[in-house]
């Protein structure tokens, strides 16, 4: 199985001390090490306003991570862990690699198209509306 890339975002209660967040993070790290995953990125977005009330809170501390792994069970495990944590009020995992793959393909396609354009007369598919960039 090829490697997959996941986004993992979780929100902790707004008044959580730093150590508690560290504890959650180290827990994630621990299970990553156990199941064979790699944390690519960790970002602390800090306190943000929530778009709606979650567990009676209007704001929360966002933590964002990217995880690369071969094993899907790791994500299930992480979700289970986050669910039982008291300080974590919301979490989301998203599989990212398929979207990124699609993006790469599209970029490639466009490069091919722009490379080909000089040879041909005005290309039939007007997919890249550059001249309209001035509008609004």
């Amino acid at each position, binding site marked *: 199985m090829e490697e997959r890339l996941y986004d993992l*975002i979780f*929100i902790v209660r707004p008044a959580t001390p730093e150590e508690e967040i560290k504890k959650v993070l180290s827990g994630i790290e621990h299970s990553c090490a156990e199941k064979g995953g790699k944390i690519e990125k960790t970002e602390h977005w800090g306190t943000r306003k929530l778009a*709606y009330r979650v567990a009676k809170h209007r704001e929360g501390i966002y933590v964002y991570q990217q995880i690369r792994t071969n094993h899907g069970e790791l994500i299930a495990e992480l979700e289970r862990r986050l669910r039982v944590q008291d300080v974590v009020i919301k979490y989301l995992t998203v599989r990212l690699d398929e979207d990124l793959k699609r993006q790469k393909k599209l970029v490639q396609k466009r490069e091919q198209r722009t490379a080909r354009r000089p040879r041909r007369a005005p290309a039939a598919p007007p997919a890249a509306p550059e001249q309209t960039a001035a509008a609004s």
Partner: protein
Amino acid sequence: MTEEQKQAQAPSSAPRREGGSGGHGGPRREGGPGGGGPGGPGGRPRGKRQYFRKKKVCKFCVEKMDFIDYKRADILSQFVQERGKILPRRLTGVCSRHQRWLGVAIKRARNIALLPFAGSAAGTQAPRAVAATVEAPKA
């Protein structure tokens, strides 16, 4: 009714009101976001108004975005109403492909409380400007 008759008799105040409320069916597009507005009103003859609308282009195509990130709430929020409804692309001018991705991204963002769900009454501040639609009578 009496009010309108009075205004019709007084020619000085009549034209201004006409321009405001329009003849039939006022403009129902107040909710338009960022680039959605039909631009300068100018001296538009009534009835033909929609033909003067500026041609809208897909913002994502212009910027050559091949991937709409659900984490960029600042971008996504341009394409939802303040209550959280996803705006139709006939208002925003987004191309069909990008609208599809946009929908997915918005739904993901909703899941992690970056954007509101459409139904939730929580935490909306700016009240909608509805005064304009109210005053149009059925004549």
